[in-house]
């Protein structure tokens, strides 16, 4: 008789995977209900409060419709996203690049270390007025501020990721006659990738903070400028629209990096799951 397949044995033992039955199997339903309850309470309470201080969900919704219709929201969001994209892109490029360099070369580390540490230790917000004096109120200053916020987590994680690469893997590279360049790109970089991705995930949130800070300070364009504008006009509902957009942006970006992280470091994920 042929050996039964795993599936047949599972059937024979009556171990079919059970279908979801209880309410706990639908956490998303519970989540949705929770959010709806919160919105309802807010609506009731918000309508009875001073409209200058607090608003309520339906008012925010109509304000959003209005801002979308005039095109203002999308135009300002596009400006913000562009600065965020450029600032974050530069952070990744320099963070990963310098991280690989300082992680691999002790000389480079000793040369760069004092400057990077000093810059990292200084609260980045403190540099903002100075940067505005040097760079004005335009695109450049915002990119630099976002960079200052997002760069360090990437740099630090990349450096420690590279230092964590086991010497024996590098030795395998040498044994198979890999050049320094090949060792960097075929051994060190992939080995450090889970660290790098974790750094990028941390940096996303900080880049967003950097963007808001930059736009609040410069207050000319972007979502942050909208926030200042409607704050000065006491249009609370419109301020909330901007805040909600920031929130959605944060959630979206962090989700996206998480997805990317899982994809790029899939071996690590399954390895962890098996432990």
């Amino acid at each position, binding site marked *: 008789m042929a050996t039964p397949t795993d599936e047949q044995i599972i059937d024979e033992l009556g171990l079919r995977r059970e279908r979801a039955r209880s309410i706990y199997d639908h956490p998303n339903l519970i989540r949705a209900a929770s959010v709806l309850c919160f919105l309802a309470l807010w609506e009731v309470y918000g309508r009875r409060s001073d409209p200058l201080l607090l608003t309520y969900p339906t008012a925010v919704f109509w304000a959003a419709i209005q801002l979308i219709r005039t095109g203002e929201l999308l135009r300002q969001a596009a400006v913000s996203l562009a600065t965020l994209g450029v600032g974050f892109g530069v952070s990744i490029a320099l963070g990963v690049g310098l991280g690989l360099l300082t992680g691999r070369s002790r000389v480079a580390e000793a040369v760069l270390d004092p400057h990077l540490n000093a810059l990292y230790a200084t609260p980045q917000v403190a540099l903002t007025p100075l940067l505005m004096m040097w760079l004005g109120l335009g695109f450049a200053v915002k990119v630099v501020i976002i960079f200052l916020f997002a760069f360090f987590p990437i740099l630090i994680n990349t450096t420690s990721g590279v230092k964590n690469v086991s010497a024996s*893997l590098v*030795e395998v590279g*040498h*044994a198979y006659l890999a050049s320094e360049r090949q060792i960097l790109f075929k051994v060190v970089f*992939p080995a450090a990738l889970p660290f790098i991705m974790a750094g990028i995930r941390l940096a996303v949130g900080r880049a967003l903070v950097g963007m808001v800070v930059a736009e609040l300070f410069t207050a000319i364009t972007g979502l942050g400028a909208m926030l200042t504008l409607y704050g000065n006009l006491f249009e609370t509902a419109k301020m909330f629209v901007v805040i909600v957009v920031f929130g959605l942006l944060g959630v979206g970006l962090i989700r996206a990096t998480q997805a990317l992280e899982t994809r790029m470091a899939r071996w690590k994920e*399954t390895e962890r799951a098996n432990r």
Partner: protein
Amino acid sequence: MLEVRQLSKVFFEQNDPSKPGLVALYDVSFSVRKNEFVCLLGPSGCGKTTLIRVIAGLIQADRGEIRVDGKPVTAPGRDRCMVFQQFGLLPWRTVLGNVEFGLEIDGIPREQRREISRRYLELVGLHGFENYYPHQISGGMQQRVGIARALSKEPDILLMDEPFGAVDAQTREQLQEELLKIWSKTDTTVIFVTHSIDESVYLSDRVIVMQSRPGRIKEEVRVELPRPRWEGDVKADPRFAELRARIRESLRG
């Protein structure tokens, strides 16, 4: 074809120059003929890994030299390939990707290296596992990947550092037999590190017995058992027992 001449290697504590060095190898000399199977046998810490790494060109000796076909070697080369004690697989690459690694470094085009890699995976009995990641397969299978990776480069000299040290006894016997079969089909020279007496006698033409503190060669023992050794029961041969006893004596004394 391989000559090791008066090799010595001292390790110094990197961060503490005041500490005395540790003599890992002292005045080690031997030579290996083409197509010979030689085992380096010795207790843990006697410098077997150090010696094989020097031969591989991964670290430099402090005194003495290594010659392959009369030419001194100081760096890794196409003529030698290493199978690592801890497998040395790249965890983010699949089984196939790991075997391809060496060929990729050589710049062999993708299709071609795929085909070569598949052939060697088949040779070590891993057909069907191409797309698994190292952590998804057993230790014995991981080491086969390491062996396939080394074989795929078709080296003249195969350096194996306790390749079967981390696998169970049964898998070990099976791998030993497979290794002998592969070796008999090619004209590879093998230097095989082990600390199992039985393994060294079963596999090799010659056992080089080492001792520790400082690491050096104690003696060389010829193994003139008939080949192929996987047929019949070589281990029941009285000569096998004799060699085993002799080597054990040598290790002890």
